[in-house]
């Protein structure tokens, strides 16, 4: 696009012809204040804060909607501009309650900041203000109309950003106010984006409000634990309690996006049922509280005695890469077993094999936002992969991406799809053929596929992709925060770290079915969920977890584990992007899994080397293919870097039944969120609203 010369505040700058002045100014370090303008969302020009002086224009112009043109001369801080801002603020405050001391937004309110910067100290308004009582729209969303400045950010983030459209505007003129989707209450994704994006204290969060002041919190940047998408989240921690989760600093792959789980469901962490002391099964067969030293001693002794090929180890889709790496190392070297697995929810292995010899074909979260076309197969993306779905929508909005959906039932992507097909999951690969012509003209494509595409179907899908003659990237959808990492780290019965073949052992299902296991060590997993039984009745079972899960109830020893908010380390998201998690709090009585491994090793008299996250990550980086080229500075500073595990044929065969996604929706992720009070409160009929 052609460049034009523009003069802003006496400085001449170059900008793309037609770019919005407010953006051009920002790129050149000049802030034009705004309430309604919001990057990435539709233009409103409603607040009039952004008025600037443009030479030859008869009046002040709204910088948020003004396209720059050659020779434009702009002043953003001249006297008339500053006066206009002052008066706009004066108008705004005329009906705005001046209750900052008791307003939940105090300290991070854009209106407060703007008034501080431009406002006058004295009010000329002496009339009565209009009052409307505050309303509660859902367990998490409160709306205070008098504080609302009608910037429509919430309305836009809900309809444009989330694709939900649960907020609207009622009435006219000064009586205008925001209304929820269902009369007096909201039925929506309950993502809380509207609350975050509200510049003032009009929309407030049911779980955060009145708990603290922003400056009283510590802010810890880490990664959400609830699904595989790996959203960055900034935890607000006060007195060792997480009181808030958001990502207002837009760090990370998700920008500001968080779903309901990311924003609220950290509260499982403080659930009263959280295990805070080890449990040992006593002579009466009852789990009884015990000290850490007793429990560790018992386990170490038993492990030493039972080590060998009958030992089973089940790793976690939620613990860190370091923990999984160390666990499989522990198992393969110290325990001498190849019976290693975890709950697999997507056939990454076959995808990696199908793409052997090629590179750059695993999509990143960003690719989903930039690809010319996106194909979604056999998954309810908006329910199960909120960030990826968000990026598909944003891609459609910002780049007019061609979206295609092949799913058994209606999905939210239908609304933006150029074409959607209904097809039983078993037939999806055949159905995709119908899109061949359209896709081959797409330019470039990202294919996202669910768990029913496994084994040969993955190979067929890749063959299809290759035959289109355009660049194609893939995302094999998996369930949890570190599902992908568990595979990369070799939590597999036949593959070690980096998908290298190892001596084969039993899969998770085989372990459960075997009758002669000597021991089963389950770390952060619940394989007996839903009434499943462990066939080896005599096996010594050790479970490390946060709660007394079904599996923990079968254990001989239960060790209370720390949650992801309580430790450091790295996780790898669905797209293979490695990110660092950071310890924000501590739960008395629990220990991070990594620490438990170290203590057990010590108890067994074996050496695993230094057991701290950084050292082990260094080892991973040195030894695991795909992790060796990771740009450390990016990861260490909270960024995300993608691994490239494509390293030749992977000699693994997919056994049907080994892979199944839990198909968790926005409001469930089984093991953890069932302990989230808030998530249980907002439970809505998933998807019923927007289909």
């Amino acid at each position, binding site marked *: 696009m052609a460049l034009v010369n523009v003069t802003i505040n006496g400085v001449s700058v170059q900008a793309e012809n037609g770019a919005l002045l407010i953006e051009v100014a920002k790129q050149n370090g000049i802030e034009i204040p705004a309430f309604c303008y919001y990057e990435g969302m539709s233009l409103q020009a409603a607040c009039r804060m952004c008025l600037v002086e443009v030479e030859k224009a008869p009046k002040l112009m709204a910088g948020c909607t003004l396209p720059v043109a050659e020779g434009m001369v702009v002043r953003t801080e001249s006297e008339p501009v500053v006066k206009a801002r002052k008066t706009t603020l004066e108008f705004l405050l005329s009906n705005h309650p001046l209750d900052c001391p008791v307003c939940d937004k105090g300290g991070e309110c854009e209106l407060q900041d703007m008034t501080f910067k431009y406002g006058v100290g004295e009010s000329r308004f002496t009339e009565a203000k209009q009052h409307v009582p505050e309303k509660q729209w859902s367990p998490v969303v409160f709306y205070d109309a008098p504080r609302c400045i009608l910037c429509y950010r919430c309305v836009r983030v809900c309809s444009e950003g989330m694709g939900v459209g649960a907020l609207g505007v009622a*009435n*006219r003129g000064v009586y205008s106010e925001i*209304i*929820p989707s269902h009369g007096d209450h909201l039925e929506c994704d309950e993502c809380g984006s509207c609350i975050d994006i509200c510049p003032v204290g009009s929309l407030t969060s049911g779980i955060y409000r009145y708990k603290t002041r922003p400056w009283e919190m510590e802010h810890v940047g880490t990664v959400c634990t609830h699904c595989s998408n790996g959203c960055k989240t900034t935890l607000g921690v006060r007195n060792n309690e997480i009181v808030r989760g958001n990502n207002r600093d837009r760090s990370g792959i998700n920008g500001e996006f968080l779903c309901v789980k990311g924003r609220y469901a950290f509260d499982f962490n403080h659930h009263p049922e959280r295990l805070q002391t080890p449990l040992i099964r006593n002579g009466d067969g009852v789990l009884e509280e015990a000290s850490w030293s007793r429990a560790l001693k018992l386990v170490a002794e038993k492990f030493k005695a039972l080590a060998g090929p009958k030992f089973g180890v089940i790793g976690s889709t939620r613990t860190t890469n370091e923990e999984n790496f160390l666990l499989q190392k522990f198992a393969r070297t110290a325990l001498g077993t190849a019976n290693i697995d975890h709950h697999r929810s997507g056939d990454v292995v076959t995808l990696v094999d199908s793409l052997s010899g090629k590179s750059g074909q695993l999509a990143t979260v960003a690719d989903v936002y930039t690809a010319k076309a996106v194909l979604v197969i056999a998954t309810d993306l908006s329910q199960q992969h909120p960030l990826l779905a968000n990026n598909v929508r944003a891609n459609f909005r910002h780049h007019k991406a061609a979206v295609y959906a092949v799913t058994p039932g209606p999905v939210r992507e239908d609304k933006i799809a150029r074409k959607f097909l209904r097809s039983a999951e078993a037939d999806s690969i055949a159905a995709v053929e119908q899109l061949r012509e359209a896709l081959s003209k797409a330019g470039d494509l990202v294919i996202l596929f669910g768990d029913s595409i496994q084994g040969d179907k993955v190979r067929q899908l890749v063959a299809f992709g290759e035959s289109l003659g355009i660049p194609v990237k893939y995302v094999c959808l998996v369930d949890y925060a570190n599902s992908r990492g568990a595979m990369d780290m070799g939590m597999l019965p036949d593959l070690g770290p980096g998908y290298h073949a190892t001596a084969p052992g039993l899969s998770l299902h085989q372990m459960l079915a075997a009758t002669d296991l000597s021991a089963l060590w389950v770390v952060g997993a619940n394989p007996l969920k839903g009434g499943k039984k462990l066939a080896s009745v005599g096996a010594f079972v050790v479970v490390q977890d946060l709660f007394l899960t079904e599996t923990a109830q079968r254990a001989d020893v239960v060790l209370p584990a720390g949650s992801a908010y309580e430790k450091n380390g790295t996780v790898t998201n669905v797209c293979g992007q490695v990110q660092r998690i950071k310890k924000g709090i501590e739960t008395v009585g629990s220990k991070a899994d990594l620490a438990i491994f170290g203590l057990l090793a010590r108890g067994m008299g074996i050496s695993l080397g230094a057991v701290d996250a950084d050292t082990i990550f260094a080892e991973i980086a040195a030894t695991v293919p795909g992790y060796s080229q990771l740009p450390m500075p990016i990861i260490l500073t909270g960024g995300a870097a993608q691994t490239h595990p494509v390293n030749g044929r992977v000699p693994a065969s997919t056994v049907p039944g080994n892979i199944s996604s839990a198909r968790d929706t926005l409001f469930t992720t089984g093991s953890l969120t069932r302990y989230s009070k808030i998530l249980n409160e907002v439970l809505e009929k998933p998807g019923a609203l927007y289909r």
Partner: protein
Amino acid sequence: MTFSPELEAKFADLVTHYPEGRQRAALIPMLMFGQDEIGSVTQEMMDEFGKRLGLSTMQVDEVVGYYSMLHKKPMGKFHVQVCTNVACMLRGGAELYDHACHKLGLGHKQVSADGRISLEEVECMGACSWAPAIQVNYDFHHEVSTDQLDTILEGLQ
């Protein structure tokens, strides 16, 4: 929800007036005609029109709240609207409105107990050269004196 056959026919025709895929355009006329028949914009009507035009009830609600002629509560069988805007004011519109208030014992947007009459002070309705003007439902009365107003009100049966 169903409407009279005539109105249904009108609706059926109405949606053909707008480009394909833009049938939402029929919403405001539908609300007006629906209100004329039912007496107010009911919740049921909003749900129904939403369904017909592919809108959520909230989207319909957004529109209903914006327009001053759409009422969610029923007005009287005879809705008396007195203009007090400048041109009418200059020729006694405000006094006429006061007179109506006293005569009917009603205030702005109030409905008589029997639901027969309601009163509303309205903005300019395009009768400026024949001021002061009132409208009873859709019927204009021009250059209305207080005496004439009495006669008009008494005739509303």
